[in-house]
């Protein structure tokens, strides 16, 4: 299969999964989600997703919640530790990855990620903190490596191409990914 036809197939799969998601009700009640056992009495006690999620910043994919925006608007304040809040290291450098074939370059915002997790979540196990130290490919991401450990499982899904591939510029692509763009 050529790279082009593989991409086309991928795109079709993306559309196919996006369509039912957009046609569906936003949130299923637990009894009808095809996971929970409706005969389990606890299912009527547990919270339904709609009650918690419908009041948060809306989104079109995943949980239909913009989780980063929900934190920034103060709608939720997820704790950073179990016992009292700790002030972790903060990092807000944007990373631009330019080795993306014909697609727009990828902008990785440390800030949005750091608002949800500490550095140790990714470094140094998933991502090495060195320039050009991470041979990321879409194939690996789709297989659950690198960004795909979270995106496509819990964080916004991999159908949302342009949220990462968001930088269009005329500069020739760098020889490989990982150029650091300092914040102003």
């Amino acid at each position, binding site marked *: *299969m050529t790279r082009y036809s593989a991409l086309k197939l991928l795109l*079709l799969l993306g559309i196919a999964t996006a369509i039912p998601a957009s046609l569906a009700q936003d949130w299923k009640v637990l009894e009808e989600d095809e996971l929970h056992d409706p005969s389990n009495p606890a299912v009527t006690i547990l919270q339904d997703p709609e009650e918690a999620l419908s009041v948060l910043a809306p989104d079109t994919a995943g949980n239909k919640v913009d989780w980063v925006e929900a934190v920034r608007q103060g709608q939720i304040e997820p704790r950073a530790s179990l016992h009292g809040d700790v002030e972790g290291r903060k990092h807000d450098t944007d990373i631009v990855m330019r080795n993306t074939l014909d697609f727009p370059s990828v902008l990785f915002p440390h800030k949005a990620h750091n608002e949800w997790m500490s550095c140790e979540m990714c470094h140094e196990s998933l991502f090495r903190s060195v320039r050009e130290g991470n041979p990321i490919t879409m194939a690996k991401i789709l297989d659950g490596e690198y960004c795909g450990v979270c995106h496509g499982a819990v964080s916004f899904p*991999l159908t949302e191409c342009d949220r990462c591939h968001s930088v269009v510029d005329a500069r020739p692509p760098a020889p490989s990914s990982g150029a650091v763009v300092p914040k102003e």
Partner: protein
Amino acid sequence: MKRFLKSKRLALVVLVVLPIMVAWAEYGDVVINVRAKGEGMAPVIFPHWFHRVRFQCSVCHVDIGFKTRAGGSGITMDKISQGQYCGACHNGEIAWSAENCDFCHSGMPGLETGVEGGHKTAGPGYY
């Protein structure tokens, strides 16, 4: 293969059959059925959405030590009652205690371990 890709039949499969395969569970729900089925217990359904309203990712995945692979953490009820994994919170202090078996073991029998909406469902992880 190339000809098949261009055919209307594939479009039909992709647009009609795949959506039917998509489960309607909440995105990020985790089914854990590693030991439960052998013990005659219902599978565990872990709702990511509920927990992330309350905690940042690294509380569980760094501090408590849950792996980022469904079924990969080696959770047992013994460990939970010793305060590990779920037991770090579900101890009657931070959250309700693990005596409420049905709250977690709430899945339909026979479910496979995995993340709903994730890499190994009908999502883009199959390519």
